[in-house]
């Protein structure tokens, strides 16, 4: 079966490990948080402030703020924009991601 990586003949450097709520997942250099989570089969990583509903990527370009996530203890980062680095810790977030 074809894959986007194969289609574009991509040869990224070796995968590295980041964590999602403490669980190790693999990421490729150049991937955003959203891309790495999608590749790991995760498509929702936060719940809304009001109804606690799950959300992930919606606009994919930084406009909608649906994809908010906590990266290295910094809440409300847009997963579709933020690139990953080895050892980054991602946490799913509830509401505003603050303890209020």
């Amino acid at each position: 079966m074809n894959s986007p990586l194969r289609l574009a003949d991509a040869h990224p450097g070796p995968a590295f490990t980041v964590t999602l709520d403490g669980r190790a997942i693999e990421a490729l250099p150049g991937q955003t948080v959203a891309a790495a989570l999608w590749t790991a089969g995760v498509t929702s990583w936060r719940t809304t402030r009001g109804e606690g509903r799950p959300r992930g990527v919606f606009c994919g370009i930084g406009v909608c703020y649906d994809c908010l996530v906590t990266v290295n203890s910094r809440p409300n980062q847009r997963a579709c924009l933020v690139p990953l680095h080895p050892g980054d810790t991602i946490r799913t977030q509830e509401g505003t991601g603050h303890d209020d």
Partner: protein
Amino acid sequence: MTDDRPHLAVIGAGPAGLAATVAAAAHGVHVTLIDSAARAGGQFYRQPAAELNAGRPQALHHQWRTWERLKDALAHHVEAGHVRLLTDHHVWLVERRLNQWLNQRAGDADRNAFTVHALLGPEQETPAEVRADAVLLATGGYEKVLPFPGWTVPGVLTAGGAQAMLKGTLAVSGRTAVVAGTGPLLLPVATGLAAAGVEVAALVESADPKAFVRRTRALAAQPGKVAEGAQYAAQLLRHRVRLLTRHTVVAAHGDERLEAVTVATLDTDGRVRPGTERRIACDTLAVGHGMLPHTDLAETLGCRLDGIDVQVDDEQRTDVPGVWAAGETTGIGGAALSLAEGHIAGRSAAARLNGTEPDPRTWAPAAKSRTKLREFFAALDTVYAPPARWTDLVTDDTVVCRCEEVTGGAVREAVDGLGAGDIRTVKLLTRAGMGWCQGRMCGPAVAGLAGCELTPSRRPFARPVPLGVLARAGEPESEAEPE
């Protein structure tokens, strides 16, 4: 900058901004090209991250040669010191010092009349400023999506978003997708996903193919575009993508994750035909109903809008002296039109910044293609339209404002019960549009439900700004700093 050439700040490095930058730099202007993305290219020429080391990035693109030409010209001007490329810069405000313009002579007095305020990096917390003699807005647009039950379920995303994730990060969200809505963007999205190994179960287009036939004159005037359409049709066939025209998605199903969508046939009035509903299993729904221009920066500069588009003259000048605009910010019309407008804007700005009257004959070919493409897209617009009765799909418990989770019922209550007749009043009564995205996602839906025109909502800034940055923004010492 020790350079005494005039200085133009171009905001947005998509087709329009790139064409403008190259044209202005070639005519004696120093250009700072600013974009929020990590690489130049905009939406159409979005590139995979460099670290992904793609040997064949063109596999996901069309018109690759034009991109190569632009990219090489940009690199040439950067190397020669004519252009500074600032990526990862999110512009939140462009400030104009009025008195400098009032005193202007073509030469010195208008120097540094503009300050472009940006936030660095994806985190967008560190400020940066660029001074310029003139600015050119090429900020493109974003996708319009109208609500329906289940559109907030993870796995439902914008068609352009699916494309952006694919082109930029070589990632797809699932195995089986439905591409739906209306507009020409659905074609590259469906064929792109299919080429990348996703099973595209259907392309669901609400437009009626008969409408194209009625529009043959305007369409035939653009044989290149018709051929492009034919290529997509062939690719759909090759990937065995089922094309369902005059259909719409009426609901997306799933809880934590999309499991299926229900599609139905539309009648000639744009109503769902009862009894035609059927379910299609999928884990991704890429959906879009057209595009909207990004106009925030233009609005804060005081540029006049024409409906929701930035208004420009034949030279792509806005009505604010020193401010040009090009590409989809002046109206949606695709990459080729953006290139033509960018080219004209860049040449006009260069001439005027050099104190000469521009000669439109020098950009006659671009002006001709601009006219034709505007006509072509005006014709397309009448064909590609969301179902006339799309508001029927918005049930009372359908979320309309994704950020503040305001439902269709709440919006209707504000409209029918409390008499709200415009977006602003609905916002005040329900909080629709008050969240993170500032109404960018729900604006068209609220306008539709309130039965009013979509008017641009006045946003003080183009991006949310940390308070610390705001507190420092007006400090006199930061103004004195030479760029």
